[in-house]
C-alpha cells in the first residue's frame, strides 16, 4: 500500500512527490508522457523559478531541478491512469496502464496533478474546412521545441494569452511570419513582459476581433476575421480575410479533471477545477489536487507551491485519519472576482488565496469585509493572478464566510 499516489509528473506532481518523500511517505509518481516535466521541457523561454528557486530559469531547467531530486520516489513514465477508485475514505485504488500492463495499486491518499488541456478551434466557434495546419499553441510548441518541426510559415494566432505570445516569438525567431494575433477581448490576455514580444517582432495585434472561419484545400489557406462590439457580438460588414497556412489557437486552458469528476468530486465551474479546502483536499476525503488541475496558474512557482501544500495535506490526512477542522469558513466571490481558490478555510493555518478578477481596474482596494482586511493595489488585470496571504488569526475573525472583492479606492 502506498501512502500517496501522485498523478501527473509535471511541476505540481514532482514538487508534491518530493515534499511527500521528505515527510517520510511512500510515494508513487505516475505520468503518461515518456518523459517527466509536464509542459516545462517545451517551455524553453526564461522567466521560471524566480519565487520558488530564487533564480531565473527556463522551463527545462526548472523541470530538471525537480527531476534530479526524486530519489526515494517510485517513478513510472508512460503510465496513463485509467481510473481512480475511492473504495473508502482511507483506502483508494489507482488503475493505470503502462508497458508493464494494467495495474491496480492501493493507496491511502491521492494527489491529482494532471494539469490542464487547451481549448481548441471548435470550442471557440471557428467553422469552415477541416484542413491540416490548425494547431493549439501547446501542440505547435511540442512540435517546434521538442521535436524540432516547424508547423508552418505564415501564421495567424488566435488569442493573446501567454502561450500564444510566446509562440509568436518562437515562430518569428525561427523565420516564420506571424501575420496577426487576434484577441476577442478589448485588452491583451498575456503578461506585460509577453505583450512586448509583439513590438519586438512587429506583429499586429487585433483587439476586439475574432477568427470565425477557416478555408483551404487540404491545408489552411485563409482565415476570416471579424470585429466585435463591446458585448462581443460580431459587427456585420467588418469581416476581412488573412492569408495564412497555419492557424494557432491559444484560447485558454481548462483543468483536466475528468478522472475526478467521474468519481463525483465537486467541480467549481468558475475555476474549472475541484472545490478544495485549505489543504487542497477535494470533496472526496484523501484526494488532493495541485497545479493547473486545481486552477489555471500564471507562474510555475505557484504550481510547485501547491504541490508541496497538497503533500503536507496528505501527511496530515495519514497521521490523523483525515483533515481535521472544527469549522469550515467559505470564501465567497464578491465584486470583480471571477474565481478564487481554496474555497474553504479553517482558521487553523495561514492560507494563500489565489484569485482572478473579471475585468481590468486601476487604483483599487482588494477587500475582505468580514475580517476588515484591505489591500490597496494600483492595478488589477484578468491575466495576472492575485495571490494573497490570509493569516489564521485573521480568518478566525469571520463566522461563516469571508468575501473577497475588488472595489474602487475612494
Amino acid at each position, binding site marked *: 500500500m502506498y501512502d500517496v499516489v501522485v498523478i501527473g509528473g509535471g511541476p505540481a506532481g514532482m514538487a508534491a512527490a518530493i515534499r511527500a518523500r521528505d515527510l517520510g511517505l511512500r510515494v508513487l509518481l505516475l505520468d503518461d508522457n515518456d*518523459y517527466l516535466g509536464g509542459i516545462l*521541457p517545451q517551455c*524553453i*523561454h*526564461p522567466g521560471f523559478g524566480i519565487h520558488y528557486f530564487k533564480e531565473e530559469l*527556463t522551463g*527545462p*531547467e526548472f523541470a*530538471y531541478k525537480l527531476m534530479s531530486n526524486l530519489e526515494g520516489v517510485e517513478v513510472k513514465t508512460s503510465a496513463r491512469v485509467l481510473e481512480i477508485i475511492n473504495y473508502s475514505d482511507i483506502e483508494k485504488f489507482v488503475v493505470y496502464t503502462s508497458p508493464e500492463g494494467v495495474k491496480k495499486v492501493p493507496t491511502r491518499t491521492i494527489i491529482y496533478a494532471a494539469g490542464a488541456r487547451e481549448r481548441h478551434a471548435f470550442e471557440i466557434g471557428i467553422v469552415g474546412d477541416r484542413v491540416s495546419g490548425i494547431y493549439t499553441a501547446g501542440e505547435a510548441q511540442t512540435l*517546434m*521545441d*521538442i*521535436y*524540432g518541426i516547424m508547423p508552418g510559415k505564415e501564421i495567424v494566432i488566435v488569442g493573446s494569452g501567454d502561450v500564444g505570445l510566446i509562440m509568436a516569438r518562437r515562430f518569428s*525567431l*525561427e*523565420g516564420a511570419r506571424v501575420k496577426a494575433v487576434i484577441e476577442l477581448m478589448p485588452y491583451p490576455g498575456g503578461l*506585460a*513582459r509577453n*505583450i*512586448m514580444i509583439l513590438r*519586438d517582432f512587429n506583429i499586429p495585434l487585433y483587439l476586439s476581433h475574432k477568427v470565425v472561419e477557416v478555408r483551404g484545400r487540404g491545408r489552411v489557406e485563409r482565415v476570416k476575421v471579424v470585429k466585435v462590439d463591446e458585448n462581443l457580438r460580431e459587427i456585420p460588414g467588418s469581416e476581412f480575410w488573412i492569408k495564412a497556412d497555419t492557424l494557432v489557437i491559444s484560447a485558454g486552458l481548462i483543468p483536466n479533471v475528468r478522472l475526478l469528476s467521474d468519481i463525483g468530486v465537486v467541480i467549481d465551474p468558475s475555476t474549472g477545477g475541484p472545490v478544495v479546502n485549505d489543504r487542497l483536499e477535494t470533496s472526496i476525503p484523501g484526494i488532493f489536487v495541485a497545479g493547473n488541475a486545481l486552477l489555471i496558474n500564471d507562474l510555475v512557482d505557484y504550481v510547485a507551491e501547491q504541490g508541496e501544500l497538497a503533500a503536507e495535506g496528505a501527511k496530515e490526512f495519514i497521521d490523523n485519519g483525515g483533515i481535521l477542522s472544527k469549522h469550515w469558513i467559505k470564501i465567497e466571490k464578491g465584486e470583480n472576482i471571477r474565481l478564487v481558490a481554496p474555497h474553504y478555510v479553517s482558521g487553523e493555518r495561514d492560507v494563500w488565496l489565489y484569485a482572478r478578477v473579471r475585468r481590468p481596474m486601476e487604483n483599487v482596494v482588494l477587500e475582505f469585509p468580514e475580517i476588515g482586511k484591505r489591500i490597496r493595489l*494600483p*492595478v488589477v*488585470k484578468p491575466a*495576472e493572478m492575485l495571490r494573497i496571504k490570509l493569516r489564521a488569526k485573521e480568518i478566525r475573525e469571520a463566522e461563516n464566510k469571508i468575501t473577497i472583492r475588488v472595489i474602487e479606492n475612494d
Partner: protein
Amino acid sequence: MTKVYRFTCIVCPLSCTIEVEMEGGKIKDIKGYTCPRGKEWAIEEVINPKRVVMSVVPVEGGKLPTVSVKTERPIPKDKIPELMSMLAKIKVKAPVKIGDVIAEFEGVKIIATREA
C-alpha cells in the same frame, strides 16, 4: 527631430506607461515611471535593447530529437537574426548536459538548457 518611444514597463506588475523623448540620439525627457528601476529599464530599451534568446538545435542519438538552448546573457536585439542563422546550422551529438556550451556568438555562450 524628436522621437517619442512609449513602453509598458515590465520591471514589476504595475505596468507603468513610460515615455522617452529622444532628440539627436540623446534623451530629452522621460516620464511616466514610478521607480528608478523602471526609469533605467526604459532608457536601456531605447538606447540598447537586449534580449535573452532561446531556441532548439537538433541532437543525434539523444532521448529527444532536439536540445533547448539559450544565450548565457542578453544580447543586443538587432543581433538576434544573425544569431538565429548561426544556430540554424548547428547540430550536436548526445550526450548533452544542462549547462554545456553548445556554441559561442560574439563572446556570448550558447548553453544547453535540457538534457539530451
